[in-house]
């Protein structure tokens, strides 16, 4: 089925006219009335459908933020589930406006594939999960193992490099989606499941007996995950980039969905907050948006920290610590340029 999508998208690439990278994505989105957002086919916490069938999670939240910034309504998003393989074709062909799908920012994707990564919303690294019963304590003991791996990802290439440089052999068991990986891993088709450590934690949380599986201590790669758009439309790229930055800055300045009304009403004497929420200057106008664009984002979606805690934080079943994804003020890597 995914082949079909690739073909369809390749077909769209030839048949569809100038919807490609031509400027004016923002105008197109205003005209059609919603943001078309590419998400994954489902990773607990990161993107999942709620009881009402709507996409929720850490990744869709970025799309919802963008919709709030553009339309003042975070629900004006339509989602396209993509696999590791179909995501880039979907974005390149114009089928989706932005991709928010735990995608690693790499040189070749940014430069050669013609995309623009607008930032990092999760600093991750590739890890290994293995049943405790196998008694393995380190990734260096994995010689000869069968490894479940999502195809079309950077993890696939890291895995090949890691085993080759450590002179170990392995049997790759290629799979398409996180759900397929879970089935194969639990049935014992593979000994090890490898993907981004956050994805492993998320998958493990959804197992019947999460305690029977461990994530090995080795993190074998850098995986900065972030949303991306097509290259060539700077205005649209800026809208998505500054929506994410606004969410991060809001956390830094202590603006939350709960206190944003007071803050906008002048409760804060921080000029950064005044500029962010549109009380001072016209940052929104510079982006081609309303004055209160960032107010809408924070009011309806929340700041970065709120989104993190709601979907994947330590009080959720996923239970991820902020770790290096804490704000730079708390010793993490999350840092946004000033709103000025």
């Amino acid at each position, binding site marked *: 089925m995914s082949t079909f999508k690739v073909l369809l998208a390749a077909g769209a690439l030839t048949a569809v006219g100038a919807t490609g990278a031509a400027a004016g994505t923002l105008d197109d989105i205003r005209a059609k009335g919603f943001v078309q957002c590419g998400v994954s086919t489902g990773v607990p916490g990161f993107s999942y459908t709620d009881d009402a069938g709507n996409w929720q999670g850490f990744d869709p939240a970025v799309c919802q933020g963008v919709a709030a910034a553009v339309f003042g309504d975070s629900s004006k998003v339509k989602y396209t589930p993509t696999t590791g393989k179909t995501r880039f074709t979907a974005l390149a062909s114009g089928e989706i406006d932005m991709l928010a799908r735990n995608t690693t920012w790499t040189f070749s994707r940014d430069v050669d594939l013609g995309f623009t990564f607008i930032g990092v919303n999760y600093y991750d690294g590739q890890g290994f999960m293995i049943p405790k019963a196998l008694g393995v304590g380190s990734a260096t003991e994995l010689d000869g193992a069968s490894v479940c791996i999502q*195809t079309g990802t950077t993890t696939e290439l890291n895995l090949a490099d890691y085993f080759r440089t450590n002179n170990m052999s392995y049997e790759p068991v290629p799979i398409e989606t996180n759900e397929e990986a879970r*089935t194969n891993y639990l049935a014992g088709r593979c000994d090890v499941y490898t993907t981004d450590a956050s994805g492993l934690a998320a998958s493990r949380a959804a197992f019947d007996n999460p305690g029977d599986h461990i994530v090995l201590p080795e993190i074998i790669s850098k995986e900065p995950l972030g949303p991306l758009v097509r290259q*060539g439309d700077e205005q649209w790229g800026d809208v998505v980039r500054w929506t994410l930055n606004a969410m991060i800055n809001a956390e830094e300045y202590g603006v939350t969905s709960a206190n944003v009304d007071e803050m906008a009403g002048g409760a804060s004497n921080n000029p950064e907050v005044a500029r962010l929420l549109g009380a001072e200057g016209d940052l929104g106008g510079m982006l081609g948006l309303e004055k209160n664009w960032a107010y809408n984002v924070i009011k309806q979606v929340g700041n970065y920290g709120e989104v993190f805690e709601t979907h994947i934080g330590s009080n959720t079943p996923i239970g991820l610590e902020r770790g290096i994804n804490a704000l730079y003020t708390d010793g993490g890597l999350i840092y946004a340029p000033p709103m000025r």
Partner: protein
Amino acid sequence: MAAIEHDSEPLTLGRLWSDKRYRAVITQILVVAGMFMLLAFLATNAVQNLEALGKTFGFDFLWAPAGYDINQTLIPYDSRETHFRAGVVGLLNTGLVAITGCIFATILGFILGVLRLSSNWLINRIVYCYIEFTRNVPVLVQILLWHGVIVSTLPGVRQALSPTEGVFLSNRGFYVPKPVFEDGFMLVIIAFLAAIAGMVVFSRWAKKHQEATGQIYPVFSIGVAAIIGLPLIAFFVAGMPLAFEMPELKGFNFQGGVVVRPEFAALWFALSIYTAAFIAENVRSGIQSVSHGQTEAAFALGIKPNWTMRLIIVPQALRVIVPPLTSQYLNLTKNSSLAIAIGYMDIVATFGGITLNQTGKEMEVMIIVLTIYLTISLLISAFMNWYNRRIALVER
């Protein structure tokens, strides 16, 4: 004279349309021109869109390191090899499942087709149910079903079933001993080839002899005896130069031996039994197309039942069976691209999937994959057409 007068009429613009002959030519020119314009439009549109995306068109990426590993490789391959070689590995995997699938589907299809005509009510109905069930369930569902059955019902690799020594069944695959040819095995191969060559000469001579004298030799049984017997004698003469490498559980997996992975097994089995159902129907219709009068006439002449089948019924039935059989082979080969659903690394999964994704060369990769499938299909068609001509009724 009238015709010449008619032709010498002045050629007016109206006549171009009202005259049937001119009209035929003009419409054909218009259709061809329209097709070329459509193709040109699509090509320029693709080029423009690629340019707008800032992408270049070229095949240099084929020689860059692929960077990914493939689990089933018929030729040596590792992640430092090129995308081109990864494509070849995938193509060979496609070929493996297509060829073994066609062979098994044909054998199974012929047996089922004959059984479908059995006068035994029970056999007849069982085959009927089998055919209706398999050909009415989408093949993708069947592939997923068999993959699920293997992965979920067979025991894990450390609890593998071992029906006999050296054979293991697990949800990681079926492990069998791997034959290792030692010095002197060449003799067995030479004996085998010699036996085949000898039998070709002998059967030709026997046919001529029969035409001249009417005497019949049991060519088939002599042939089987020679082709099996001669290499067997050579095998013992050479001192049994064959050893087996047993699969052994070491660490995480079995090492050594030959492994049939669940992905291959599920794909091969599902494609084969699906296609066999269609072939069975072709065979049934082929046999039924030969009128029963021919059988009766042969019996009346005193020809033995199995000769009647071999010399009278089958040659005529084949003419009906072979053309649709070609379609079934083509279908099986093309359906093998569903491999991607269960992670069998065929050409679509390796080159059309991972390479496409890692390099972002959608257009180039899809052009290559389409060309490969087209070439394979045309080769199968050409072969089957040649075979069809060979068995066609020779009209004198």
